[in-house]
């Protein structure tokens, strides 16, 4: 066991980890931030996406020790302190971009990373960026629509399906 320290959602966080402890295990089991989910443990589904130093990372594919000193942002850090949803979170609700909610934290974190890089992505760019995030309920259509809406684009011409 070794000690690891990082900043998570703006607050200092530390704990004892094994070399094999994954970042997602540290977040869920040590810090009790259970919003980050594990859907596949093989880096395919994207339910565990968090930001590490501003980049979207699959937290099941990174050791906790590798995040030493890093700035980590999880789904729990996305809304304002008073509970107001971020524009992406609000758009997911407004456009029904979720059903069971299990993939949703990863979708929101990936969407946030995309809009950071590309503030007005096209529908094709959004679909391409989300290739590492799997949703089993929605068929993706409303997720794409929500992200376009969150970026301030007109979605009225995208049919509701």
């Amino acid at each position, binding site marked *: 066991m070794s000690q690891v320290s990082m900043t998570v959602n703006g607050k200092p966080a530390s704990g004892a980890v094994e070399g094999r402890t994954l970042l997602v295990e540290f977040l869920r089991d040590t810090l009790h931030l259970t919003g980050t989910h594990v859907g596949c443990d*093989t880096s395919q589904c994207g339910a565990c996406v968090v930001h590490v130093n501003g980049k979207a990372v699959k937290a099941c594919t990174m050791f906790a020790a590798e995040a030493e000193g890093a700035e980590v942002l999880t*789904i729990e850090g*996305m809304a304002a302190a008073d509970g107001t949803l971020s524009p992406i979170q609000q758009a997911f609700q407004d456009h*029904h971009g979720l059903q*069971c909610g299990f993939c949703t934290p990863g979708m929101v974190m990936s969407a946030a990373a995309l809009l950071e890089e590309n503030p007005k992505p096209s529908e094709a760019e959004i679909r391409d960026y989300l290739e590492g995030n799997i949703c*089993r*309920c929605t068929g993706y259509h409303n997720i794409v629509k929500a992200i376009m809406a969150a970026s301030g684009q007109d979605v009225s011409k995208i049919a509701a399906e």
Partner: protein
Amino acid sequence: MPKDGGIGHATPRREDVRFLTGAGNYTDDINVTGQAYVHFLRSNVAHGNITSIDTASAEAMPGVLRIFTGKDFEGVGGLPCGWQVTDKHGQPMQEPAHPVLAQGKVRHVGDPICAIVAESLAQARDAAEAIEVEIDELPAVMDMKAALAEGATKVHDDLNSNLCYDWGFVEENKGAVDEAIKNAAHVTTLELVNNRLVANPMEPRVAVGEYKRANDESTLYTTSQNPHVIRLLMGAFVLGIPEHKLRVVAPDVGGGFGSKIYHYAEEAFVTFAAKALNRPVKWTSSRSEAFISDAHGRDHVTKIELALDADNNFTAIRTETYANMGAYLSTFAPSIPTWLHGTLMAGNYKTPNIYVNVKAVFTNTVPVDAYRGAGRPEATFQLERVIDKAARELGVDPIALRRQNFVH
């Protein structure tokens, strides 16, 4: 309470905010003070006799609390099937025993052999690698027709054959259906495979068992679409716990598509082990494990015949379906190809004579149960495909052929 604008107005969902902020409460988010973790060592062969299990070195490994095998469940009930089907002769279906942990024999890849309970999941997994299991591999039956052939290897030695049931709906109609097909102006025949699939919800299954000695009460937290049925089946048929001493909690569920309706061995195990160890016990499925332990869907092989008169009116439908049950009967498996499939064969059409035959078969594969529509999509698929084929054969418009035969 959100304001509801009534029919035609979008209503914001009440659960969205917690899901969008990471505040959802899925089963894997639940941790009970003092919990231990279980990892299942599963069969990597489809069929075989277990000749020895050596857990000695694994038991000595750090953090290991106890390793359970089939022996620990000898006096415990098996997982029951919740829907009995009577065959075309009025006889009950064949229902094999379905132990919580394999008893001397493994019957599909993924059949659980040992359950390793340790202080941490990593320790349980490490210990599993130190267990020596010898399996004398037997021929495996995969193909349903081969499984019913004379002399086929039996999945269950104590059953007469690999046939669970041979069902007819309605048996009394068979003569009239055969006659209508014989007298038809045209008969279209189609053979179809409705392939097996894995439901794969985004959230893998999880079960946490807890036991309170003070009042002899058990609690199971589980990824379930159907907690009341699990309480009934597990309490009454597997562990012998009266309902007022058993609580089954299903919190937020990350998708199920049918696969989280059933009562699974892992749920019975954690409830049993929590009492045996006087420690809460948690199991979280990996994605790979889900493929070999969640109930699969579909897996039908069907021959369908559609008879038409000289004016292209449907006069009869006759089907013969082989339905794969897998190695054991999952909770509602027998009902899917029968009451949820055979009874739907009319579709939207006014066909006067219909007969459906279903042979449910045991094979050395993962058990199959209801998946998304369960039987009804299989029936619709066959029926609509055979109508398309009939239209092609007769050189008529497939839509016009349907309209002509609609119930109206």
